[in-house]
């Protein structure tokens, strides 16, 4: 074989490869367009399926988003968590100030402040509104308190700080405001598990809803399937439009879920911000974000496609020309 001919053979091969890719792309584009048109031809039925999928997606995703925000919030609150060290009555103000000096030099203490019984009673009268009760008592029942702001918050470090403080002379008791943060975090972890479980179950639900809708579509297009198989359509040719339909259902549902989440954020943002400001937190509630939204859309499409695949696997083989 001469050189030029070989070159032309390679060119030919490249051309057939390219035209095969081109025609595959054409087929996909045409099938996707036709599938979408078909869905839009029955807008009410399509909207209902899409709504079911959207609601099924919005529940677990919304819950996960809420938990994520609470987790962020608890970290944020944990940073300003306080330790109250209650002193015995015998400790004088001067002794207490010395203690504050010592504690202030510890590495794990950010700030230490002495609140004398008198200051304590003033604060109590000011904030509690129960000043009359205090005034009725013959002597000030409040102990002196050292208020600490710890620097770090991991469990071991907190334990060390706690036992050190309890061991100090003149210390009556130590109260960690950390406990509720820990409890909240445990609760959040638990709720996170529950949400993950819910997500899994509802994802299955989305796949099954799509699968069932596709099953009906397959029944409705029995004649077409028979003709396509008769003129030489492979199982893949027959399945392709249904897979696109499923993916579109999932995508539509995910878009609906995104809209619902966005609406929910819009409604909740105002009150949530006010509440956070009241608690003195500068935390800002986080939405789904661009990445999360893209993930939701991709996940929804994938689930729809998967449901369609299940249905197609089960029902298409049964339709053969007879």
């Amino acid at each position, binding site marked *: 074989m001469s050189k030029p001919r070989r070159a032309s053979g390679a060119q030919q091969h490249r051309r057939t490869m390219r035209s*095969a890719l081109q*025609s*595959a792309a054409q087929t996909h584009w045409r099938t996707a367009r036709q599938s979408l048109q078909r869905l839009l031809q029955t807008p009410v039925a399509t909207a209902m399926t899409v709504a079911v999928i959207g609601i099924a997606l919005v529940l677990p995703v919304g819950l996960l988003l809420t938990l994520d925000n609470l987790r962020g919030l608890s970290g944020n609150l944990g940073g300003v968590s306080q330790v109250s060290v209650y002193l015995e009555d015998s400790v004088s103000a001067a002794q207490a100030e010395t203690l504050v000096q010592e504690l202030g030099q510890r590495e794990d203490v950010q700030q230490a402040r002495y609140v004398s019984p008198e200051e304590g009673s003033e604060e109590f009268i000011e904030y509690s509104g129960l000043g009359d009760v205090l005034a009725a008592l013959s002597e000030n029942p409040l102990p002196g308190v050292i208020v600490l702001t710890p620097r770090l918050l991991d469990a071991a470090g907190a334990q060390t700080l706690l036992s050190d403080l309890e061991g100090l002379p003149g210390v009556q008791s130590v109260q960690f405001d950390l406990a509720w943060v820990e409890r909240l975090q445990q609760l959040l972890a638990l709720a996170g598990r529950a949400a993950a479980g819910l997500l899994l179950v509802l994802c299955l639900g989305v796949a099954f809803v799509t699968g069932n809708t596709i099953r009906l579509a397959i029944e409705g297009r029995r004649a077409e399937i028979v*003709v396509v198989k*008769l*003129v*030489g359509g*492979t199982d893949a*040719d027959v399945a392709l439009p249904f897979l696109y339909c499923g993916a579109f259902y999932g995508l539509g549902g995910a878009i609906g879920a995104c809209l619902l989440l966005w609406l929910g954020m819009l409604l909740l943002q105002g009150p949530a911000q006010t509440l956070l400001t009241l608690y003195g937190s500068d935390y800002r509630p986080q939405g789904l974000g661009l990445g999360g939204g893209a993930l939701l859309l991709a996940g929804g499409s994938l689930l729809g496609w998967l449901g369609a695949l299940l249905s197609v696997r089960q029902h298409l083989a049964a339709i053969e020309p007879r």
Partner: protein
Amino acid sequence: MIRFDNVSMRYPGGHQALHQVNFELADGEMAFLTGRSGAGKSTLLKLLMVMEKPSQGQILVDGRNLGRLPRQQIPFHRRRIGVVFQDHQLLFDRSVFDNVALPLQIEGYPKHEADRRVRAALDKVGLLRKEKMNPQQLSGGEQQRVGIARAVVNRPQILLADEPTGNLDPELAAEIMQLFEQFNQVGVSMLIASHDLSLITRLQHRILTLDQGSVVQDAWQGAEPAARGPRP
């Protein structure tokens, strides 16, 4: 092109549809398959389309044993065969053009090439001006011609037809047969099942007669066209 070797076909219910059928159809040959209804004409065509498998014997199409055809090869076998049905098997959710384009879309023809071939096929059956219509708007004879255009659009080596003139008046039926003869003249092998004896005996072709699943007669109408020989 087509060879049946001792082919028998018994349906699961026990009905013996074909019994020891032997015949051969040469490349480029045209033959009619006749017999009363229930004689086994449709079963024979279904075996060729691998819609059924024979319970005995073997069927060779272009040298390939259909009994040994793996399931995933069946679509590719069907692409080499055009089929015309009595009930047309057209899809009413799309235009005449899209119906005819279906086999080409499945085979992945580029759009411009597919469009060209569809128009050529529609022109051949005289329906070029009705390409945008829905098949439901067409008469029975026109619908059958759409079916024929779809069967020949990817230029198959073999064309099968199952009672293609069953629902048509004699004049239209004769027109359809003329169309088949034209395809045969360009080298397509043809097997046409029809019980319309008065029509097919007028045409000069081979006639296979089936009775209760067996070939009882294999005769030429008029002179045996040996002179025509194989196509170039």
